[in-house]
């Protein structure tokens, strides 16, 4: 994906991506922010991603290491802990082409939700977005297709069950697990023993 090089406004390490997203929303930035999670760096991994903005509202996300865009891309650089955020301003006209890449677009509240786990900021961002953008992420036929795929649903549920059991042990909540959950926990040894 090509994003025109912008003018660097500031680059600093922040504890929380929410602070950057909030500032960008408030200043109504048109441009992009490059995120580089610092903990990943310490582990010898390079992780970085870009979120572009139009008037402070996120438009698209791209994981520059894995070269994946959209919501999947966003998850690639959603690493908790400090992150270096480099804020760049770009002329809106120069971003127009990039913003047409449908596959990389994200609903306006997604970066706050995924990168920062900040639901209030996500809501604030959606509220501030133009009416047309507020509708994004709501596609009824997609919902119906999702619910029609019984196998995929069962996979989500069984993964959640596994996760619930594994975490119950981690949190010392084994004793309050329902009997059937505990029984199956006893039969299937935890997979997360690394």
């Amino acid at each position, binding site marked *: 994906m090509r994003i025109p090089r912008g003018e660097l406004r500031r680059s600093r390490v922040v504890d929380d991506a929410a602070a950057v997203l909030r500032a960008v929303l408030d200043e109504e930035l048109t441009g992009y922010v490059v995120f580089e999670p610092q903990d990943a760096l310490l582990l010898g991994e390079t992780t970085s991603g870009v979120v572009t903005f139009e008037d402070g509202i996120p438009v698209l996300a791209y994981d520059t290491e894995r070269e994946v865009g959209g919501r999947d891309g966003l998850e690639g650089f959603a690493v908790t802990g400090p992150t270096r955020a480099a804020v760049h301003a770009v002329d809106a006209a120069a971003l127009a082409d990039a913003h047409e890449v449908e596959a990389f677009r994200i609903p306006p*509240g997604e970066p706050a*939700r995924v990168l920062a*786990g900040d*639901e*209030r900021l*996500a*809501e604030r961002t*959606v509220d501030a977005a133009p009416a047309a953008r507020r*509708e994004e*992420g*709501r596609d*009824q036929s*997609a*919902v*119906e297709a*999702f*619910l*029609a795929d*019984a196998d995929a*649903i069962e996979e*989500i*549920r069984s993964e*959640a*069950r596994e*996760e*619930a*059991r594994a*975490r*119950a042990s981690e*949190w*010392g*909540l*084994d*004793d*309050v*697990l*329902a*009997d059937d*959950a505990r029984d199956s926990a006893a039969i299937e040894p935890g997979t997360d023993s690394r």
Partner: protein
Amino acid sequence: MVEAFAVASGKGGTGKTTSTLALGMALAEDYDVTVIDADTGMANLLFHAGLDDADVTLHDLLVDERDAAVSDAVYERFGMSVVPCGTSLAAFEAADPGRLRDVVAELAADTDVLLLDSPAALGSKSAVLPVVLADRIVVVLQPTVPSLSDGLKVQEYAHSYGTDTAGVVFNRVRPDENVDKIAEQAGRYFGGQTLASVPESDAVRAARREGKPLLAHAPEDPAADAFREAAARLDVRDGDGRDVAERFKSAVVPERI
């Protein structure tokens, strides 16, 4: 008689707090209702209930050497007993989530219906505890894939702890969305029943700005009607308050997060 419901969604932004207070106010017509903001990490019920300046909150009850009595954090508002939580991060860090069990047990002894506004997360013990402690969950969903997917997850967590699903509320439904088909499909995976389809409403935001629950701010709004319908469909079960209190007390929650 008491039944404790955790109002849960797994995902934020579905209107859980609005739903909790709306169901609470509607149920308060027939029951003695206590609403607890169990979202100790991201409390916001206090803003919805005009309790921004509450002196004593749930946080004060969750610290090790507390001098506040449980009753000090209970505020009579809008026909309900409301236990708000504070928003200070320091207080959240000092709070021992395990103490929630004792607080809930004490409150359960003296009410008909307990509603726990639960965190929009499953990643920590304090986030999961309301679902562990409740008898049943009410899942608040939006008709979107991420919301349904997270709702399924929170339901599986709840079931793992023996907490059943009382029903599902579709919230913030847009006029162009027909939830009937989605509700019918979702009914195959979610327990309980579809309690209501609540339309997206500007009154919800206005109510929050005013620091009032929706049913107090705009009782005639279609969203308020839908929440009343949901409350009417919720079959609150008879139970012995002492049993519930006892069960809460025996829930083993030994460690801090």
